[in-house]
């Protein structure tokens, strides 16, 4: 029963993105103890990098803030950042997990005052903005980051300056010699919520990402459109900083393609419609072209498609472009066949955004470390542990939260069986 809480009834949630947060909070607010393990320095995951959500064009931080408040107010939730689950033994009801805690080099005593960052002279490409700008080697990812404690790059921690910077901390929270540690926990159930990473667009050779500066990706574009991103929200071309007023979006860049990701990533169509709105809102005289195979605005998201369709400055071309070339002015030229007219086109744009798909972390760098773990051909988790959100299938945020809430239910079943 929910009010009895024998030891070992804890629910382990792996991944602190929107799915993991949801599973953790919903289970805790139902009366269960939760251990939340996140690999990054802060909670929030992939959605924290998004500028806005479709279809409401609202900030993900709004919902994250509420969830963080719920975590702060709930003693049932323990969370670890910079931590990874290395090994899972046992089975549902009685798992033993080994967790490695990577050094943050900054303790929880940090007050977020920022003295250290001011004292730090070393900058690195900002991973939060996909390396599009430089940041200090000791920092937190953004002003709303939770937990708000700073963290230090391991490389920098080895430097002599790190030791000096440590002295600059008024509360002595910086420890450049901090070591990794390993802990073991007994848990009743495990929910894998490790989410997704953007598919590596450099692998999509015909589109020349990495070769042509003005070919970018949808996740980079999110940061480009964010006022807290590398360009303070100005939508410009990477090559020359020129305002990008003629922008193309190429759907299924890597998705629905046997050469890359054979499955459909589900959200990219809607994400591009959202990003089209970024462009149209910023430049009234802008033009947007969306190249697609099928427009996948499932169920009620259809309304968002119709809303986008109503904008005469957004044109739609049913076509998977064959390749991209670059003209003398550095404009990417998109080449292909319009399958509805049969015309062969070669259209230049200021900027081309590749709607790259979702690669599940569980397929690459967050495989479930259990002997009986199973996954499908694409690396989505199908068994051994419970899977929530994009660890189970490519889904939008609302569906991920539904999935995560459902997994809280399944996790509780295991805990109840144990109790």
């Amino acid at each position, binding site marked *: 029963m929910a009010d009895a809480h024998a030891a070992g009834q804890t629910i382990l949630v792996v991944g602190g993105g929107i799915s993991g947060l949801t599973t953790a909070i919903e289970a805790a607010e139902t009366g269960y103890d939760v251990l939340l393990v996140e690999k990054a320095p802060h909670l929030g995951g992939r959605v924290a990098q998004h500028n806005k959500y479709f279809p409401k064009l609202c900030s993900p931080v709004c919902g994250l803030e509420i969830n963080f408040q719920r975590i702060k107010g709930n003693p049932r939730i323990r969370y670890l950042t910079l931590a990874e689950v290395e090994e899972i033994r046992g089975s549902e009801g009685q798992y033993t997990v080994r967790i490695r805690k990577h050094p943050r080099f900054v303790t929880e005593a940090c007050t977020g005052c920022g003295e250290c960052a001011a004292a730090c002279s070393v900058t690195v490409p900002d991973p939060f903005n996909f390396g599009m700008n430089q940041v200090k080697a000791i920092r937190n990812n953004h002003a709303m980051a939770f937990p708000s404690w700073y963290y230090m790059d391991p490389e920098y921690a080895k430097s002599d300056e790190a030791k000096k910077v440590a002295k600059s901390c008024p509360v002595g929270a910086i420890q450049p010699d901090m070591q990794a540690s390993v802990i073991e926990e007994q848990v009743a159930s495990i929910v894998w919520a490790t989410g997704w990473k953007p598919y590596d667009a450099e692998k999509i*050779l015909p589109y020349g990402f990495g070769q042509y500066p003005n070919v970018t990706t949808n996740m980079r574009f999110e940061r480009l459109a964010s006022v807290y991103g590398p360009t303070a929200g100005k939508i410009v071309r990477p090559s020359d900083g020129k305002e990008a007023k003629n922008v193309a979006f190429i759907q299924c860049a890597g998705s629905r393609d046997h050469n890359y990701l054979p499955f459909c990533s589900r959200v990219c169509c809607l994400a591009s419609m959202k990003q089209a709105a970024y462009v149209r809102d910023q430049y009234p005289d802008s033009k947007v072209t969306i190249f697609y195979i099928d427009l996948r605005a499932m169920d009620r998201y259809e309304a968002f498609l119709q809303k986008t369709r109503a904008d005469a400055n957004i044109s739609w071309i049913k076509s998977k472009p064959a390749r991209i070339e670059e003209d003398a002015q550095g404009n990417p030229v998109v080449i292909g066949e319009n399958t509805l007219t049969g015309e062969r086109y070669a259209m230049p744009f200021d900027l081309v955004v590749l709607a790259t798909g979702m690669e599940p972390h569980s397929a690459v760098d967050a495989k479930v470390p259990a002997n009986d773990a199973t996954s499908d051909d694409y690396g989505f988790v199908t068994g051994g542990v419970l899977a929530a959100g994009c660890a189970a299938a490519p889904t939008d945020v609302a569906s991920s939260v539904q999935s995560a809430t459902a997994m809280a239910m399944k996790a509780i079943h295991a805990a109840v069986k144990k109790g």
Partner: protein
Amino acid sequence: MKEYTFFPGCSSEHNASAANMENSVQAMCRLLGIKLNEIDDWNCCSASIGYAGGGQLPRMALSARNFALAQKQKGNADLVATCAACWLAMRETNERIETDDDIKKNINTALAEAGLSYDGHIKTRHMVEVLIEDFGWDALKAKVTKPLKGLKVAGYVGCQTNRPFGVCGDSYENPTYLDQMIEATGATAVPFPMKVACCGGALMFSEPDKSCVLTKQILQSAVDNGADVIVTPCPVCQLNLEVYQGKINTTLNTNFNIPILYYSQLFVLSWGGSWQDAALHQQVIPAEPLRRFA
């Protein structure tokens, strides 16, 4: 001394259009220590254009016969081809025979008529694969005695050494092996966006006007990028680019006069081979920019 079974292909025959490739390849192999054991009494591979006249089985039977002879004469030693079309046709045939039992059965029924049989197991390789995989870049660079310093070369990979199989896992859209070869001889590989564009291939024979437009774009790009010469591994490309320059100049009013060479000719020359060894005397458009290295 490394030995390989060798399939020269029709264009490499004496007095054939790719005689300059054949001669320079032979010289290159001598300098590098490669023994090529030519298949006795080989026949045409039918290339890709063979589809229409031959269809599936007759087309593949041609390559199958070469494999059968090779197996009989030289066992399962790797079979080296120098012509892109031959390499592709042979590889495709072998792949189908090894993966499709119906094809294997039918092909062997046909081969039996010639008293032959073949059930796969011979690896077909392109000469450039042998250079890169069996000798390696250091070995190729080490042989250079006359670096082709200052020579600006457009590396034209073309289609069939690149797609669908590709050389040494190199990229389809932007392969770099040829540029690396050029650089290995001490020459400079100029940027060349058209490096994998199609020259019109076999259509040059039937619809030269269509193909010449493609060829022209390739020549133009090379010239625009400041190339002194174009280098290719493919005899069809070499022929189209070199022999049709005159026609292109008259019909599309250009004035190209750019030598089209084989990678093997660059190696031979940079490895100290003579003008003759490199078969540079066999260029329809004289390889003047290379004179100073002779």
